[in-house]
């Protein structure tokens, strides 16, 4: 089945072209095109995943039939195909869950633009997942940044413009560092294709010729991507960007965009620098420390928030901290935990955003805690969705968050040097999570005398269906974790 080898390329192209075509389509047609293209990519990724599972071979696709050092390559292993599938699912759910809000919040002329941005976003995410070329990755990082800014700004009010500017400044700074890192890497290795760079890096490393430039490169790459994925202390843009944009954007940004960069970082660690070289540099300890700091500081910021959307946004900072902590532990097992947490957090965070929007809808549009009192009764399905998401974030068994915490802890126990700080911070951060999420859940289930607007499941069928899918997805990740962990492990082995 040589035809299947084209699927990664098709996925990127379908998404990109549907974005371009959307520009001239009517609003409704653009919406349907967007929906259909995501579905098609979902299907292609599923077939690809199934195919790679069957053959167990990596698909390498030469763009334009140019051979390696000159041409551009796409590479798909188990992890890549699975992540593409997962990202499409989350994208789909985020879009359907926030559709109604989008209609209300974004002026009609801009709906087309919104779908274009979403298509471009998906294309860039897929390209980041599949590409085997560092410079292509950089190009798509930029496309990703531009479309993310657009997604933030599409709902036009003062706060979103400010948020988009903040996001852009931080993000471009990150891109700049990334670009410098890529340049230096090109300088010392003479390659842009990931596999070639790694061969060169490992020979440079064993020869010991460029120790300082190599370290600086690793710092630049890590720092640039950490900045873009909102690792503490580069997280200041998060609250505004996730807090004020329209809900689909917030869900996509928090659960996919920041994750795309982390996936790229993991790819760089394995496929560009090489895991052993990366571990030998002490950058990994710095990443570990900042991850730990993020776990605590993100939660503390979230506790202090009085606005449900901003609270969820700050909780992202804490969760990103978990992922970097896992990377910082520097073992294969910890990396599996990190990738698992990427999945679990992506599924949960988008769910929380979608749930929260239902709750604010029945609280006169206010996002402040006082107004949200009792909203869980006024909009039942949104309340349940939010509660399930919170329980998952706190790490209650049955839901996905528990498994990722379990995996992190198991990984930490295996690393004697970093065990104690990791476990202690994990415990503290879990309790902090419990404080703000449980506070919110109790708030939305505290009865009030005040009679507000009520929304039943029948009134918002699509929304209710999305919520149910989210809950099912979360429980699925929480209960069937063993196959997922096996898959991640096999995927990581294919990376190397």
């Amino acid at each position, binding site marked *: 089945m040589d035809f299947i080898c084209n699927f990664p390329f098709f996925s990127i192209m379908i998404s990109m072209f549907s974005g371009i075509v959307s520009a001239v389509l009517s609003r409704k047609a653009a919406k349907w095109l967007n929906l259909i293209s995501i579905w098609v990519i979902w299907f292609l990724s599923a077939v690809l995943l199934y195919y790679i599972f069957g053959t167990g071979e990596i698909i390498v696709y030469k763009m334009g039939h140019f051979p390696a050092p000159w041409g551009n390559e796409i590479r798909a292993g188990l992890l890549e195909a699975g992540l593409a599938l997962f990202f499409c699912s989350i994208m789909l759910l985020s879009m359907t869950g926030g559709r109604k809000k989008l209609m209300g919040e974004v002026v009609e002329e801009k709906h087309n633009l919104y779908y274009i941005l979403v298509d471009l976003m998906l294309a860039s995410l897929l390209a980041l997942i599949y590409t085997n070329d560092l410079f292509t990755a950089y190009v798509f990082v930029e496309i990703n940044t531009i479309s993310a800014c657009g997604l933030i700004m599409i709902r036009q009010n003062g706060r979103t413009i400010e948020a988009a500017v903040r996001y852009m400044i931080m993000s471009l700074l990150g891109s700049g560092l990334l670009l410098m890192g890529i340049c230096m890497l090109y300088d010392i290795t003479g390659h842009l294709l990931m596999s070639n760079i790694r061969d060169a890096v490992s020979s440079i490393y064993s020869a010991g010729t460029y120790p300082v430039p190599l370290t600086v490169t690793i710092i630049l790459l890590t720092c640039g991507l950490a900045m873009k994925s909102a690792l503490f202390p580069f997280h200041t843009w998060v609250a505004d960007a996730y807090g004020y944009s329209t809900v689909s954007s917030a869900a996509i940004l928090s659960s996919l965009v920041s994750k795309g960069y982390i996936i790229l970082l993991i790819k760089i660690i394995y496929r560009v620098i090489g895991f052993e070289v990366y571990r030998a540099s002490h950058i990994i300890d710095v990443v570990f420390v900042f991850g730990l700091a993020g776990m605590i500081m993100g939660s503390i910021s979230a506790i202090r928030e009085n606005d449900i959307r901003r609270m969820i946004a700050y909780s992202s900072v804490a969760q990103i901290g978990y992922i970097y902590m896992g990377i910082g532990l520097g073992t294969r097992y910890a990396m599996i935990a990190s990738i698992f947490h990427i999945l679990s957090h992506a599924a949960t965070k988008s769910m929380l955003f979608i749930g929260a929007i239902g709750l604010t809808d029945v609280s006169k549009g206010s996002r402040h805690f006082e107004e949200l009192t009792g909203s869980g009764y006024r909009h039942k399905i949104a309340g349940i969705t939010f509660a399930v998401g919170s*329980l998952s974030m706190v790490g*209650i068994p049955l839901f996905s968050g528990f498994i990722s915490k379990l995996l992190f802890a*198991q990984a930490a126990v295996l690393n004697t040097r970093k065990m104690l700080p990791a*476990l202690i911070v994990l*415990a503290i951060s879990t309790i902090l999570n*419990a404080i703000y999420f*449980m506070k919110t859940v*109790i708030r939305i289930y505290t009865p009030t005398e005040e009679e507000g607007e009520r929304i039943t499941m029948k009134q918002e069928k699509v929304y209710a269906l999305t919520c149910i899918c989210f809950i099912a997805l979360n429980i699925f990740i929480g209960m069937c*974790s063993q196959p997922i962990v096996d898959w991640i492990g096999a995927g990581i082995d294919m990376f190397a």
Partner: protein
Amino acid sequence: MTEAFILIPVVLPIVAGLLLEFIRKLNKKTMNLCVVAVLAIEAVLVFMNMGKIGAEVELFELTDNLPIYFKIDNLGIMFAILMVVIWLLAGIFSFEYMKHEDNERRYQGFYLMVLGVLIGLDFAGNLVTFYMFYEMMTITAFPLVIHTGKKEATMAGLKYLYYSLGGAYFALFGFYFVFKYADSLTFTPGGVGINAGSHETLLLICALFMIIGFGVKAGMFPLHAWLTSAHPVAPAPASAVLSGIIVKTGILGTIRVIYYIFGTKFIRGTFVQTVWMSLALLTVLMGSTMAYKEKLLKKRLAYSTVSQISYIMFGLSLLNETAFEGSLLHVLMHGFTKCGLFLAAGAIIYKTGKTKVDELRGIGKEMPIVIWCFTILSITLIGIPPTGGLVSKWYLCMGALKSGIAVFDILGPVILIVSALLTAGYLLPITIQGFFPGDDYDYSGLEHKEPAKTMTIPLIVLTAGAIGVGLFSTPIITYIETILATF
């Protein structure tokens, strides 16, 4: 495949409870009938499982080497039987009681779900399954605590949640290390074998963390404060099961961890045992004193729970057979007694609306059956012969004297006896005032306020049960010896 049938008692109430939450069109009478039918079937099923000791079933693997695994053993079945019996009685009681509260359907739904989760907890065959059900119990019992929806209840509920989750994470912290150093996490009588090597102190600290973590649910000092806020604010039948049963899950957790994972050899004579004994004794004394000073009836009973559960904890901490027998006897005895006392308090509140101890003058003339039951249950809890309390306390004291641990072998019994005196001091005045209101009492305002039969009958059965545990303690002790024989 037939082995999977042992899970029916776990699944049935959870499914029934969930259905109850979602079926709107159900009048109260049919709902009550359904609830009682489910509870009765559940009781039958659990009793049937008694014949399947040793049956095991593995559902699926959570992650590497962490299966969700159930196994029925003697200890689990004993707790399960206690739970279903009391759940049935308190359930029947609640039909009448809940008439003056809203949202009956929600209450009954969660009431059933908690039972399913508890049975799962009893049958859990390894630590990870146990932990899963433990957390689920915390979550499903939460709506029972905040049922009234008042601000006070919500705050108490929050407190309950934070303490419980915090405690569970204390336990989880230890769990991570045990996972690394133990051969397996399957509950094995006598311990699974810990390869501590040079990390013995670390593992002992973990054991202490797990004791304190599970001790949160059992209301052990220093993390006991939630219990006295959360139990009194729930509706009376819910307080009865919270105080009579759910606190026992902390005991079960401790037994599982110390007797089935670490093994008593690992703990004996270490600082963990000393700290554990000291905390338990301190809680016994503190709980009784606080109960003595407390004016609100339900809160007084909650403080009494704090004290009584730590009797059990003390018995477990001694790590010898006699004390273990005493502890398990006390689990049964306290389950019946405290549940009965809370139901009696509920009946008083339901009929008269009085919540303070001082207001209860002459109550015995108004509702004689309830106060008689209350009296008998009080006597049981104090430990006056021939009731259940005497036997369990006897074994606990004997265990302490036998243990030969310096200071504690004498201090233990002394504190237990002082606390028994305090128990008499805080429970008997209610009876005395209730039956002998004094010369200046105005008998003209006296009304007959005996509650309905659905309330009195469960109360009488519980009282009978409490006496029964004392009178027929020999077969129970024989049964506990079969548990001990496996160690």
